[in-house]
Protein backbone atom coordinates (compact mmCIF):
# COMPACT_ATOMS: atom_id res chain seq x y z
CA UNK A 1 0.00 0.00 0.00
CA UNK A 2 1.34 3.38 -0.98
CA UNK A 3 1.65 6.22 1.50
CA UNK A 4 -1.00 8.83 0.81
CA UNK A 5 -0.71 12.57 1.22
CA UNK A 6 1.41 15.16 -0.52
CA UNK A 7 4.01 13.84 -2.87
CA UNK A 8 7.06 15.84 -3.84
CA UNK A 9 6.57 17.56 -7.16
CA UNK A 10 9.36 17.29 -9.66
CA UNK A 11 9.83 19.60 -12.61
CA UNK A 12 8.76 17.03 -15.17
CA UNK A 13 5.39 16.51 -13.44
CA UNK A 14 2.37 17.41 -15.50
CA UNK A 15 -0.45 16.26 -13.29
CA UNK A 16 -0.16 15.85 -9.54
CA UNK A 17 -3.10 14.53 -7.58
CA UNK A 18 -2.96 14.84 -3.80
CA UNK A 19 -5.21 12.93 -1.37
CA UNK A 20 -8.21 13.17 -3.67
CA UNK A 21 -11.70 12.32 -2.39
CA UNK A 22 -14.66 12.19 -4.77
CA UNK A 23 -18.25 11.34 -3.89
CA UNK A 24 -21.27 10.44 -5.99
CA UNK A 25 -23.90 11.74 -3.61
CA UNK A 26 -23.28 9.78 -0.42
CA UNK A 27 -21.19 7.15 -2.13
CA UNK A 28 -17.45 7.49 -1.89
CA UNK A 29 -16.02 6.82 -5.36
CA UNK A 30 -12.39 7.90 -4.82
CA UNK A 31 -10.76 7.81 -1.39
CA UNK A 32 -7.43 9.40 -0.65
CA UNK A 33 -5.85 8.79 -4.02
CA UNK A 34 -2.55 10.46 -4.85
CA UNK A 35 -0.65 10.11 -8.08
CA UNK A 36 1.45 11.97 -10.59
CA UNK A 37 2.09 11.80 -14.30
CA UNK A 38 5.19 13.22 -15.93
CA UNK A 39 6.12 14.09 -19.49
CA UNK A 40 6.31 11.07 -21.74
CA UNK A 41 4.98 8.77 -19.05
CA UNK A 42 2.17 6.28 -19.53
CA UNK A 43 0.28 5.61 -16.33
CA UNK A 44 -2.16 2.71 -16.50
CA UNK A 45 -5.05 2.87 -14.03
CA UNK A 46 -6.35 -0.64 -13.51
CA UNK A 47 -9.01 -2.05 -11.27
CA UNK A 48 -12.26 -3.98 -11.25
CA UNK A 49 -15.65 -2.60 -12.28
CA UNK A 50 -16.70 0.24 -10.01
CA UNK A 51 -13.22 0.72 -8.57
CA UNK A 52 -13.39 4.43 -9.45
CA UNK A 53 -11.11 4.48 -12.50
CA UNK A 54 -13.40 6.46 -14.78
CA UNK A 55 -14.38 8.78 -11.93
CA UNK A 56 -10.70 9.52 -11.33
CA UNK A 57 -10.13 10.52 -14.97
CA UNK A 58 -13.37 12.52 -15.14
CA UNK A 59 -12.42 14.37 -11.96
CA UNK A 60 -9.02 15.28 -13.39
CA UNK A 61 -10.76 16.49 -16.58
CA UNK A 62 -13.17 18.57 -14.49
CA UNK A 63 -16.43 16.73 -15.15
CA UNK A 64 -16.72 15.79 -11.47
CA UNK A 65 -15.89 18.00 -8.52
CA UNK A 66 -13.73 16.58 -5.78
CA UNK A 67 -14.83 16.86 -2.17
CA UNK A 68 -11.32 17.30 -0.86
CA UNK A 69 -7.75 16.96 -2.01
CA UNK A 70 -6.13 18.82 -4.86
CA UNK A 71 -5.24 18.47 -8.51
CA UNK A 72 -2.25 20.37 -9.87
CA UNK A 73 -1.48 20.82 -13.54
CA UNK A 74 2.04 22.05 -14.28
CA UNK A 75 2.25 23.64 -10.85
CA UNK A 76 -1.17 25.34 -10.95
CA UNK A 77 -4.01 24.23 -8.69
CA UNK A 78 -6.85 23.40 -11.09
CA UNK A 79 -9.12 21.66 -8.55
CA UNK A 80 -11.90 24.24 -8.93
CA UNK A 81 -11.45 25.02 -12.62
CA UNK A 82 -14.30 24.31 -15.06
CA UNK A 83 -13.79 21.45 -17.49
CA UNK A 84 -13.44 23.64 -20.58
CA UNK A 85 -10.72 25.70 -18.91
CA UNK A 86 -8.77 22.57 -18.06
CA UNK A 87 -9.12 21.42 -21.67
CA UNK A 88 -7.75 24.76 -22.88
CA UNK A 89 -4.77 24.42 -20.53
CA UNK A 90 -3.86 21.07 -22.06
CA UNK A 91 -5.83 18.23 -20.47
CA UNK A 92 -7.74 16.15 -23.00
CA UNK A 93 -10.03 13.32 -22.03
CA UNK A 94 -11.19 10.66 -24.45
CA UNK A 95 -14.40 9.79 -22.60
CA UNK A 96 -15.78 6.33 -22.10
CA UNK A 97 -18.24 5.47 -24.86
CA UNK A 98 -16.42 7.80 -27.29
CA UNK A 99 -19.08 10.54 -27.11
CA UNK A 100 -18.61 11.80 -30.66
CA UNK A 101 -20.77 14.60 -32.05
CA UNK A 102 -23.11 12.37 -33.92
CA UNK A 103 -24.71 14.84 -36.26
CA UNK A 104 -21.29 16.15 -37.32
CA UNK A 105 -18.98 14.75 -39.97
CA UNK A 106 -15.62 13.23 -39.14
CA UNK A 107 -13.78 16.40 -40.13
CA UNK A 108 -16.20 18.60 -38.18
CA UNK A 109 -15.60 16.45 -35.10
CA UNK A 110 -11.87 16.99 -35.44
CA UNK A 111 -12.33 20.72 -36.05
CA UNK A 112 -14.38 21.08 -32.87
CA UNK A 113 -11.55 19.28 -31.08
CA UNK A 114 -9.08 21.77 -32.56
CA UNK A 115 -11.08 24.96 -32.01
CA UNK A 116 -9.06 25.91 -28.94
CA UNK A 117 -5.92 23.99 -29.83
CA UNK A 118 -2.52 24.89 -28.47
CA UNK A 119 0.30 25.02 -31.01
CA UNK A 120 1.91 21.60 -31.36
CA UNK A 121 2.60 18.59 -33.51
CA UNK A 122 -0.97 17.38 -34.02
CA UNK A 123 -3.22 18.93 -36.63
CA UNK A 124 -6.22 17.60 -38.52
CA UNK A 125 -3.84 16.74 -41.39
CA UNK A 126 -1.52 14.87 -39.02
CA UNK A 127 -4.45 12.82 -37.72
CA UNK A 128 -5.24 11.82 -41.32
CA UNK A 129 -1.63 10.60 -41.60
CA UNK A 130 -1.94 8.60 -38.39
CA UNK A 131 -5.21 7.03 -39.53
CA UNK A 132 -5.01 6.97 -43.34
CA UNK A 133 -8.58 5.69 -43.82
CA UNK A 134 -9.96 8.94 -42.41
CA UNK A 135 -8.97 11.29 -45.25
CA UNK A 136 -11.33 9.90 -47.84
CA UNK A 137 -14.22 9.58 -45.38
CA UNK A 138 -13.76 13.00 -43.79
CA UNK A 139 -17.19 14.24 -44.94
CA UNK A 140 -19.09 11.20 -43.66
CA UNK A 141 -21.24 11.42 -40.56
CA UNK A 142 -19.48 9.59 -37.73
CA UNK A 143 -22.61 7.67 -36.86
CA UNK A 144 -22.00 5.32 -39.80
CA UNK A 145 -18.54 4.30 -38.57
CA UNK A 146 -17.64 1.06 -36.81
CA UNK A 147 -16.79 1.10 -33.10
CA UNK A 148 -13.06 1.02 -33.77
CA UNK A 149 -13.26 3.82 -36.30
CA UNK A 150 -15.32 5.94 -33.92
CA UNK A 151 -12.74 5.32 -31.21
CA UNK A 152 -9.99 6.48 -33.54
CA UNK A 153 -11.98 9.66 -34.27
CA UNK A 154 -12.44 10.23 -30.52
CA UNK A 155 -8.69 9.93 -29.96
CA UNK A 156 -8.03 12.18 -32.96
CA UNK A 157 -10.47 14.76 -31.61
CA UNK A 158 -8.54 14.83 -28.32
CA UNK A 159 -5.11 14.89 -29.99
CA UNK A 160 -5.77 17.85 -32.31
CA UNK A 161 -6.06 20.04 -29.21
CA UNK A 162 -2.34 19.27 -28.69
CA UNK A 163 -2.81 18.29 -25.07
CA UNK A 164 0.03 18.01 -22.57
CA UNK A 165 -1.85 15.22 -20.84
CA UNK A 166 -4.07 12.72 -22.61
CA UNK A 167 -6.61 10.80 -20.53
CA UNK A 168 -7.91 7.65 -22.21
CA UNK A 169 -10.99 6.07 -20.66
CA UNK A 170 -11.63 2.46 -21.69
CA UNK A 171 -10.59 2.92 -25.30
CA UNK A 172 -10.64 -0.84 -25.92
CA UNK A 173 -14.16 -1.40 -24.60
CA UNK A 174 -16.27 -3.43 -27.00
CA UNK A 175 -13.61 -3.55 -29.71
CA UNK A 176 -12.07 -6.57 -31.41
CA UNK A 177 -8.49 -7.31 -30.25
CA UNK A 178 -7.04 -6.53 -33.67
CA UNK A 179 -8.76 -3.11 -33.61
CA UNK A 180 -7.50 -2.45 -30.10
CA UNK A 181 -3.97 -3.20 -31.26
CA UNK A 182 -4.31 -0.68 -34.10
CA UNK A 183 -5.46 2.00 -31.67
CA UNK A 184 -2.68 1.32 -29.20
CA UNK A 185 -0.15 1.60 -32.04
CA UNK A 186 -0.45 5.41 -31.91
CA UNK A 187 0.47 5.71 -28.22
CA UNK A 188 4.28 5.58 -28.72
CA UNK A 189 3.96 8.43 -31.24
CA UNK A 190 1.96 10.48 -28.72
CA UNK A 191 4.41 9.81 -25.91
CA UNK A 192 7.36 10.69 -28.15
CA UNK A 193 6.08 14.27 -28.19
CA UNK A 194 6.38 14.46 -24.41
CA UNK A 195 2.66 14.04 -23.78
CA UNK A 196 1.78 12.37 -20.50
CA UNK A 197 -0.79 9.61 -20.88
CA UNK A 198 -3.17 8.25 -18.26
CA UNK A 199 -5.21 5.30 -19.42
CA UNK A 200 -7.95 3.33 -17.79
CA UNK A 201 -8.11 -0.28 -18.88
CA UNK A 202 -10.14 -3.24 -17.83
CA UNK A 203 -7.88 -5.37 -19.99
CA UNK A 204 -4.99 -5.43 -17.53
CA UNK A 205 -2.55 -7.15 -19.90
CA UNK A 206 -3.16 -4.50 -22.54
CA UNK A 207 -2.70 -1.72 -20.02
CA UNK A 208 0.52 -3.12 -18.64
CA UNK A 209 2.02 -3.65 -22.09
CA UNK A 210 2.18 0.08 -22.83
CA UNK A 211 2.47 1.48 -19.31
CA UNK A 212 5.60 2.87 -17.74
CA UNK A 213 3.83 2.83 -14.39
CA UNK A 214 0.72 1.18 -13.07
CA UNK A 215 -1.77 2.37 -10.47
CA UNK A 216 -4.32 -0.13 -9.21
CA UNK A 217 -7.57 1.01 -7.59
CA UNK A 218 -9.65 -1.12 -5.29
CA UNK A 219 -13.00 0.29 -4.19
CA UNK A 220 -11.73 3.82 -4.71
CA UNK A 221 -8.45 3.34 -2.87
CA UNK A 222 -4.93 2.86 -4.15
CA UNK A 223 -4.06 -0.81 -3.76
CA UNK A 224 -0.82 -0.90 -5.71
CA UNK A 225 1.48 1.58 -7.44
CA UNK A 226 4.77 1.33 -9.29
CA UNK A 227 6.48 0.10 -12.44
CA UNK A 228 4.75 -2.92 -13.98
CA UNK A 229 7.96 -4.96 -13.99
CA UNK A 230 8.33 -4.74 -10.23
CA UNK A 231 5.16 -6.74 -9.54
CA UNK A 232 4.37 -10.39 -10.09
CA UNK A 233 1.10 -11.39 -11.71
CA UNK A 234 0.02 -12.67 -8.33
CA UNK A 235 0.59 -9.33 -6.61
CA UNK A 236 -1.38 -7.49 -9.28
CA UNK A 237 -4.20 -10.01 -9.00
CA UNK A 238 -4.36 -9.42 -5.26
CA UNK A 239 -4.44 -5.65 -5.68
CA UNK A 240 -7.07 -5.95 -8.39
CA UNK A 241 -9.52 -8.22 -6.61
CA UNK A 242 -8.72 -7.26 -3.06
CA UNK A 243 -8.23 -10.81 -1.86
CA UNK A 244 -6.14 -13.78 -2.72
CA UNK A 245 -8.19 -15.36 -5.45
CA UNK A 246 -6.55 -18.76 -5.33
CA UNK A 247 -6.92 -18.92 -1.58
CA UNK A 248 -10.55 -17.80 -1.84
CA UNK A 249 -11.46 -20.37 -4.46
CA UNK A 250 -9.71 -23.19 -2.63
CA UNK A 251 -11.69 -22.31 0.48
CA UNK A 252 -15.07 -22.31 -1.23
CA UNK A 253 -14.52 -25.30 -3.44
CA UNK A 254 -15.08 -28.57 -1.63
CA UNK A 255 -12.10 -30.82 -2.33
Amino acid at each position, binding site marked *: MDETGAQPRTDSDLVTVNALNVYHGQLCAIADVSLRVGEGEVLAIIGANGAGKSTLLRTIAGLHQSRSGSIYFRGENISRL*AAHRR*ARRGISLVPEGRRLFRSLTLEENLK*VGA*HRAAPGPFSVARIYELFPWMAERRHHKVLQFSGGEQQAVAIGRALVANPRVLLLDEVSLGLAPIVVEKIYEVIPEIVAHGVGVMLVEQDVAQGLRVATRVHCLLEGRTSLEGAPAQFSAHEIERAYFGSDLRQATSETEPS
Partner: protein
Amino acid sequence: MTWVNVVTQGVLIGGFYALFACGLSLMFGVMKVINLAHGDMAVVAAYAAVFLAPKLHVSQLWSFLVIVPLFALVGYLVQRTLFQRAIDRDPFTTLLVTFGLSVVIENLLLEIYSANGQSVSIGALIAKSWQVNSVIYVSYVSLVVLAVAVAVLAVLQLFLSKTGSGRLIRAVSDDHEAAQLCGANYKHVFGIAAAIAFATVALAGIAYGMTTEFMPTSGGINLLYAFEAVVIGGLGSLWGTLAGGVGIGVAQEIGAHINPAYQILAGNLLFLAVLAVRPRGLFGKRTSLNE
Protein backbone atom coordinates in the same frame (compact mmCIF):
# COMPACT_ATOMS: atom_id res chain seq x y z
CA MET B 1 -58.03 30.93 -59.53
CA THR B 2 -59.59 31.41 -56.09
CA TRP B 3 -57.69 28.32 -54.93
CA VAL B 4 -54.42 29.76 -56.16
CA ASN B 5 -55.21 32.82 -54.10
CA VAL B 6 -56.02 30.70 -51.06
CA VAL B 7 -52.68 28.88 -51.33
CA THR B 8 -50.81 32.15 -51.96
CA GLN B 9 -52.27 33.74 -48.84
CA GLY B 10 -51.51 30.54 -46.92
CA VAL B 11 -47.86 30.62 -48.00
CA LEU B 12 -47.61 34.28 -46.99
CA ILE B 13 -48.97 33.67 -43.51
CA GLY B 14 -46.85 30.49 -43.30
CA GLY B 15 -43.71 32.56 -43.68
CA PHE B 16 -44.68 34.45 -40.55
CA TYR B 17 -45.32 31.21 -38.63
CA ALA B 18 -41.90 29.92 -39.65
CA LEU B 19 -40.18 33.13 -38.54
CA PHE B 20 -42.05 32.87 -35.28
CA ALA B 21 -41.15 29.21 -34.80
CA CYS B 22 -37.46 29.10 -35.70
CA GLY B 23 -36.35 30.50 -32.34
CA LEU B 24 -38.43 27.88 -30.56
CA SER B 25 -36.88 25.21 -32.75
CA LEU B 26 -33.36 26.47 -32.06
CA MET B 27 -33.81 26.63 -28.28
CA PHE B 28 -35.22 23.14 -28.23
CA GLY B 29 -32.55 21.78 -30.58
CA VAL B 30 -29.58 23.20 -28.69
CA MET B 31 -30.62 23.40 -25.05
CA LYS B 32 -33.59 21.01 -25.01
CA VAL B 33 -35.56 23.87 -23.52
CA ILE B 34 -39.19 24.26 -24.55
CA ASN B 35 -39.73 27.94 -24.04
CA LEU B 36 -43.39 28.36 -23.10
CA ALA B 37 -42.85 32.12 -22.88
CA HIS B 38 -41.77 32.28 -26.53
CA GLY B 39 -45.08 33.72 -27.74
CA ASP B 40 -45.18 36.27 -24.93
CA MET B 41 -41.68 37.45 -25.77
CA ALA B 42 -42.85 38.16 -29.31
CA VAL B 43 -45.68 40.23 -27.86
CA VAL B 44 -43.20 42.10 -25.65
CA ALA B 45 -41.20 42.94 -28.77
CA ALA B 46 -44.36 44.27 -30.43
CA TYR B 47 -45.13 46.43 -27.39
CA ALA B 48 -41.55 47.65 -27.39
CA ALA B 49 -41.98 48.69 -31.03
CA VAL B 50 -45.09 50.68 -30.14
CA PHE B 51 -44.05 52.26 -26.85
CA LEU B 52 -40.27 52.06 -26.48
CA ALA B 53 -39.14 52.94 -30.01
CA PRO B 54 -40.79 56.41 -30.08
CA LYS B 55 -38.99 57.28 -26.84
CA LEU B 56 -35.72 56.45 -28.58
CA HIS B 57 -36.79 58.62 -31.55
CA VAL B 58 -37.03 55.64 -33.84
CA SER B 59 -40.10 55.23 -36.04
CA GLN B 60 -42.19 52.13 -35.38
CA LEU B 61 -41.42 50.83 -38.87
CA TRP B 62 -37.65 50.83 -38.23
CA SER B 63 -37.93 49.90 -34.54
CA PHE B 64 -36.58 46.42 -35.23
CA LEU B 65 -33.12 47.95 -35.74
CA VAL B 66 -33.07 48.72 -32.02
CA ILE B 67 -35.30 46.01 -30.60
CA VAL B 68 -33.72 42.99 -32.31
CA PRO B 69 -30.20 43.64 -30.93
CA LEU B 70 -31.72 44.52 -27.56
CA PHE B 71 -33.60 41.21 -27.50
CA ALA B 72 -30.45 39.31 -28.46
CA LEU B 73 -28.68 40.84 -25.46
CA VAL B 74 -31.61 40.11 -23.15
CA GLY B 75 -31.72 36.54 -24.52
CA TYR B 76 -28.09 35.96 -23.67
CA LEU B 77 -28.54 37.32 -20.15
CA VAL B 78 -31.78 35.42 -19.45
CA GLN B 79 -30.16 32.20 -20.67
CA ARG B 80 -27.01 32.65 -18.58
CA THR B 81 -29.03 33.40 -15.42
CA LEU B 82 -32.61 32.16 -15.25
CA PHE B 83 -32.69 29.38 -17.87
CA GLN B 84 -29.24 27.98 -17.08
CA ARG B 85 -30.20 27.54 -13.43
CA ALA B 86 -33.33 25.70 -14.49
CA ILE B 87 -31.37 23.48 -16.89
CA ASP B 88 -28.88 22.66 -14.12
CA ARG B 89 -31.75 21.19 -12.11
CA ASP B 90 -33.85 19.11 -14.53
CA PRO B 91 -35.94 19.41 -17.71
CA PHE B 92 -39.18 19.73 -15.78
CA THR B 93 -37.89 22.83 -14.01
CA THR B 94 -37.26 24.56 -17.35
CA LEU B 95 -40.91 23.98 -18.28
CA LEU B 96 -42.08 25.45 -14.98
CA VAL B 97 -39.75 28.43 -15.21
CA THR B 98 -40.75 29.32 -18.77
CA PHE B 99 -44.43 28.82 -17.93
CA GLY B 100 -44.03 31.11 -14.93
CA LEU B 101 -42.27 33.67 -17.10
CA SER B 102 -45.15 33.52 -19.55
CA VAL B 103 -47.68 34.27 -16.80
CA VAL B 104 -45.56 37.09 -15.39
CA ILE B 105 -45.09 38.72 -18.80
CA GLU B 106 -48.79 38.58 -19.69
CA ASN B 107 -49.84 40.10 -16.39
CA LEU B 108 -47.19 42.80 -16.45
CA LEU B 109 -48.29 43.82 -19.94
CA LEU B 110 -51.93 43.87 -18.81
CA GLU B 111 -51.00 45.97 -15.81
CA ILE B 112 -48.94 48.47 -17.77
CA TYR B 113 -50.70 48.70 -21.15
CA SER B 114 -54.21 47.37 -20.33
CA ALA B 115 -56.03 44.84 -22.49
CA ASN B 116 -56.60 47.29 -25.34
CA GLY B 117 -55.53 46.15 -28.77
CA GLN B 118 -52.41 47.77 -30.21
CA SER B 119 -50.68 47.64 -33.52
CA VAL B 120 -47.30 48.65 -34.86
CA SER B 121 -47.97 51.63 -37.06
CA ILE B 122 -46.26 51.59 -40.43
CA GLY B 123 -48.27 54.36 -42.07
CA ALA B 124 -49.72 53.96 -45.52
CA LEU B 125 -47.57 50.90 -46.23
CA ILE B 126 -50.11 48.64 -44.53
CA ALA B 127 -52.69 49.19 -47.27
CA LYS B 128 -50.34 48.77 -50.23
CA SER B 129 -50.53 45.58 -52.17
CA TRP B 130 -49.52 44.11 -55.45
CA GLN B 131 -52.39 43.02 -57.68
CA VAL B 132 -51.37 39.90 -59.58
CA ASN B 133 -54.71 39.53 -61.36
CA SER B 134 -58.37 40.14 -60.64
CA VAL B 135 -58.40 37.67 -57.74
CA ILE B 136 -54.93 37.59 -56.22
CA TYR B 137 -53.70 40.49 -54.12
CA VAL B 138 -50.38 40.20 -52.35
CA SER B 139 -49.93 42.60 -49.47
CA TYR B 140 -46.47 44.23 -49.42
CA VAL B 141 -46.11 43.70 -45.71
CA SER B 142 -46.91 39.99 -45.89
CA LEU B 143 -44.52 39.58 -48.80
CA VAL B 144 -41.73 41.34 -46.90
CA VAL B 145 -42.39 39.20 -43.82
CA LEU B 146 -42.19 36.03 -45.95
CA ALA B 147 -38.96 37.25 -47.55
CA VAL B 148 -37.50 38.09 -44.14
CA ALA B 149 -38.51 34.66 -42.81
CA VAL B 150 -36.83 32.84 -45.70
CA ALA B 151 -33.75 35.05 -45.41
CA VAL B 152 -33.50 34.52 -41.63
CA LEU B 153 -33.83 30.75 -41.99
CA ALA B 154 -31.30 30.66 -44.83
CA VAL B 155 -28.76 32.75 -42.92
CA LEU B 156 -29.31 30.70 -39.79
CA GLN B 157 -28.86 27.46 -41.72
CA LEU B 158 -25.67 28.74 -43.37
CA PHE B 159 -24.37 30.00 -40.04
CA LEU B 160 -24.97 26.64 -38.37
CA SER B 161 -23.55 24.50 -41.17
CA LYS B 162 -20.65 26.58 -42.49
CA THR B 163 -19.13 28.65 -39.69
CA GLY B 164 -16.97 27.58 -36.77
CA SER B 165 -19.40 29.05 -34.24
CA GLY B 166 -22.28 27.23 -35.89
CA ARG B 167 -20.33 23.98 -35.78
CA LEU B 168 -19.72 24.55 -32.09
CA ILE B 169 -23.45 25.13 -31.49
CA ARG B 170 -24.24 21.83 -33.24
CA ALA B 171 -21.53 20.06 -31.25
CA VAL B 172 -22.87 21.41 -27.96
CA SER B 173 -26.38 20.42 -29.05
CA ASP B 174 -25.18 16.84 -29.67
CA ASP B 175 -23.21 16.41 -26.44
CA HIS B 176 -22.39 19.39 -24.28
CA GLU B 177 -20.11 17.45 -21.95
CA ALA B 178 -17.97 16.22 -24.84
CA ALA B 179 -17.88 19.78 -26.18
CA GLN B 180 -16.53 20.93 -22.83
CA LEU B 181 -13.74 18.40 -23.17
CA CYS B 182 -12.86 20.13 -26.46
CA GLY B 183 -12.51 23.43 -24.60
CA ALA B 184 -15.96 24.83 -25.35
CA ASN B 185 -17.78 26.75 -22.64
CA TYR B 186 -21.20 25.24 -23.29
CA LYS B 187 -23.01 27.77 -21.13
CA HIS B 188 -21.68 30.56 -23.33
CA VAL B 189 -22.73 28.61 -26.44
CA PHE B 190 -26.21 28.18 -24.93
CA GLY B 191 -26.27 31.94 -24.38
CA ILE B 192 -25.44 32.61 -28.03
CA ALA B 193 -28.16 30.22 -29.20
CA ALA B 194 -30.64 32.00 -26.91
CA ALA B 195 -29.52 35.37 -28.24
CA ILE B 196 -30.26 34.21 -31.79
CA ALA B 197 -33.61 32.76 -30.73
CA PHE B 198 -34.64 35.98 -28.95
CA ALA B 199 -33.55 38.10 -31.91
CA THR B 200 -35.71 36.06 -34.30
CA VAL B 201 -38.69 36.12 -31.95
CA ALA B 202 -38.38 39.91 -31.67
CA LEU B 203 -38.46 40.15 -35.45
CA ALA B 204 -41.49 37.87 -35.56
CA GLY B 205 -43.26 39.86 -32.84
CA ILE B 206 -42.76 43.17 -34.64
CA ALA B 207 -43.91 41.60 -37.92
CA TYR B 208 -46.97 40.29 -36.10
CA GLY B 209 -47.74 43.73 -34.71
CA MET B 210 -47.50 45.24 -38.19
CA THR B 211 -50.06 42.89 -39.71
CA THR B 212 -52.46 42.25 -36.82
CA GLU B 213 -53.82 43.91 -33.73
CA PHE B 214 -52.26 42.40 -30.62
CA MET B 215 -53.05 42.24 -26.91
CA PRO B 216 -51.05 41.12 -23.88
CA THR B 217 -52.55 37.63 -24.24
CA SER B 218 -51.82 37.23 -27.96
CA GLY B 219 -48.71 35.16 -27.29
CA GLY B 220 -50.45 31.92 -26.43
CA ILE B 221 -52.20 31.22 -29.72
CA ASN B 222 -49.06 32.09 -31.68
CA LEU B 223 -47.02 29.79 -29.50
CA LEU B 224 -49.45 27.02 -30.42
CA TYR B 225 -48.99 27.62 -34.17
CA ALA B 226 -45.23 27.83 -33.70
CA PHE B 227 -45.25 24.52 -31.87
CA GLU B 228 -47.28 22.94 -34.62
CA ALA B 229 -44.97 24.31 -37.30
CA VAL B 230 -41.92 22.95 -35.48
CA VAL B 231 -43.46 19.53 -34.91
CA ILE B 232 -44.80 19.22 -38.45
CA GLY B 233 -41.39 20.14 -39.86
CA GLY B 234 -39.51 17.88 -37.50
CA LEU B 235 -37.81 19.03 -34.29
CA GLY B 236 -34.58 20.89 -34.89
CA SER B 237 -34.93 21.07 -38.67
CA LEU B 238 -35.00 24.70 -39.81
CA TRP B 239 -36.22 24.12 -43.37
CA GLY B 240 -38.74 21.71 -41.90
CA THR B 241 -39.98 24.55 -39.72
CA LEU B 242 -40.56 26.66 -42.85
CA ALA B 243 -42.40 23.77 -44.47
CA GLY B 244 -44.43 23.31 -41.28
CA GLY B 245 -45.30 27.00 -41.08
CA VAL B 246 -46.36 27.12 -44.72
CA GLY B 247 -48.34 23.88 -44.27
CA ILE B 248 -50.30 25.34 -41.36
CA GLY B 249 -50.80 28.64 -43.17
CA VAL B 250 -52.15 26.94 -46.28
CA ALA B 251 -54.35 24.56 -44.28
CA GLN B 252 -55.81 27.50 -42.35
CA GLU B 253 -56.56 29.47 -45.50
CA ILE B 254 -58.19 26.46 -47.13
CA GLY B 255 -60.26 25.88 -44.00
CA ALA B 256 -61.27 29.53 -43.89
CA HIS B 257 -62.24 29.43 -47.54
CA ILE B 258 -64.62 26.55 -46.95
CA ASN B 259 -66.06 28.12 -43.84
CA PRO B 260 -64.46 30.95 -41.82
CA ALA B 261 -65.09 28.96 -38.64
CA TYR B 262 -62.83 26.17 -39.90
CA GLN B 263 -59.70 28.30 -40.15
CA ILE B 264 -57.98 27.26 -36.93
CA LEU B 265 -59.49 23.79 -36.99
CA ALA B 266 -57.93 23.01 -40.38
CA GLY B 267 -54.44 23.92 -39.16
CA ASN B 268 -54.84 21.75 -36.08
CA LEU B 269 -56.17 18.85 -38.16
CA LEU B 270 -53.07 19.00 -40.38
CA PHE B 271 -50.95 18.95 -37.23
CA LEU B 272 -52.79 15.89 -35.90
CA ALA B 273 -52.54 14.12 -39.26
CA VAL B 274 -48.77 14.66 -39.49
CA LEU B 275 -48.34 13.60 -35.89
CA ALA B 276 -50.25 10.38 -36.58
CA VAL B 277 -48.50 9.50 -39.83
CA ARG B 278 -44.99 10.86 -39.22
CA PRO B 279 -44.50 11.41 -35.47
CA ARG B 280 -41.00 12.75 -36.10
CA GLY B 281 -42.27 15.36 -38.54
CA LEU B 282 -41.61 15.74 -42.24
CA PHE B 283 -37.86 16.30 -41.99
CA GLY B 284 -37.14 15.09 -38.48
CA LYS B 285 -34.42 12.53 -37.90
CA ARG B 286 -33.00 12.80 -34.46
CA THR B 287 -32.92 15.89 -32.32
CA SER B 288 -30.04 17.27 -34.32
CA LEU B 289 -29.79 20.62 -35.99
CA ASN B 290 -28.37 19.24 -39.19
CA GLU B 291 -30.23 19.64 -42.45
